């Protein structure tokens, strides 16, 4: 098996695993459909925006939750934003944690919020790693002269 085929196989397998394990959902496919020769980096660009946005929001969340009097409305607003952007790129597991996190906000459950913030950080770093690996595989494939398969 030549290098290109091998890399292609690797990429497809890896991508499939991300879907199977629930890290990504169909929205990620939708994004890939929006990428073409005129916009070859679209997915990477959107995902990068997501990374920036998420890191900002996670930091904000930590700050708000450190306060003496926690402003749950603010917590909820941040989680809502994160839920939105994770949904927009198909980061399913992050999105799901956001949903349960919001319930804790509604209940003004401090412990719950702290627990979910931790879980959120965890899921975010997982999906970030996965996506970075995915993009690396794509780069390797392109560098070897291959093309990214349509999933």
């Amino acid at each position: 098996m030549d290098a290109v085929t091998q890399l292609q196989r690797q990429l497809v397998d890896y991508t499939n695993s991300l879907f199977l394990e629930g890290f990504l959902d169909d929205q990620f496919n939708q994004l890939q459909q929006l990428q073409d020769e005129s916009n070859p980096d679209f997915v990477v660009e959107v995902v990068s925006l997501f990374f920036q946005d998420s890191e900002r929001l996670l930091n904000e969340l930590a700050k708000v939750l450190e306060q003496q009097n926690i402003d749950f409305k603010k917590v909820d607003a941040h989680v809502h934003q994160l839920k939105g952007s994770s949904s927009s790129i198909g980061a399913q597991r992050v999105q799901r944690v956001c949903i349960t996190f919001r319930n804790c906000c509604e209940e003004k459950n401090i412990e719950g919020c702290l627990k979910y913030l931790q879980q959120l950080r965890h899921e975010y770093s997982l999906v970030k790693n996965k996506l970075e690996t995915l993009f690396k595989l794509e780069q390797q494939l392109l560098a070897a002269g291959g093309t990214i398969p349509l999933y």
Partner: protein
Amino acid sequence: MAIAGETYRSTAGCEELHVLAVDDSFVDRKVIERLLKISSCKVTAVESGTRALQYLGLDGEESSVGFDALKVNLIMTDYSMPGMTGYELLKKIKESSAFREIPVVIMSSENIMARIDRCLEEGAEEYLVKPVKLSDVKRLKDFIIKGEGEENIRTKLNKRKLQDDRHEDNLLPVSSSSLPSTPVSPSSPLVACDLATSQSPSSPSSSPPSSPSLPVCLTKRPKLHSS
């Protein structure tokens, strides 16, 4: 195909629709921009209702409205935004004589009946549940091009799109038997999804939907169930 009696927009003959997209999220702005560009639309993306009003020249400033702003064919706005919500923006647009004819579409990640009702009653053309898909944009584009005057039941009824793959509890199980052509018992899948007649999500209504041959979960228009 001749379209009779439509309010023919001035875009007739002009290929590109100009869409004003309003969303406070970077990620969503980028995505909607791409969705629209890939659908051959010209896009102006702004981050808030205030900016949108400025762009349209509705902010009370004496500055002249940019030429581009006069040719906006569609406004797509996020619902939840800090400062001015999409709903408030919708109201301001509908209150303006210059822009009230422009179709406004609300986008929201939340599938809340009361919110949807409110937006549609205020004159929103459609309420899209996020994330917005290419098929949503294509459908909108076709709708705008055909013009609002067209008495196309199917188009009017395709006013709300539910998240098929997320809200599986709302989704009709697509069984191998064909969809019932007449409205039937409350256990009928069509009724479970007939949100037009049920105010609370937990009470399946037994009143028939008005268009039995509807594709699943795709309709909501206040006047259809006001009888």
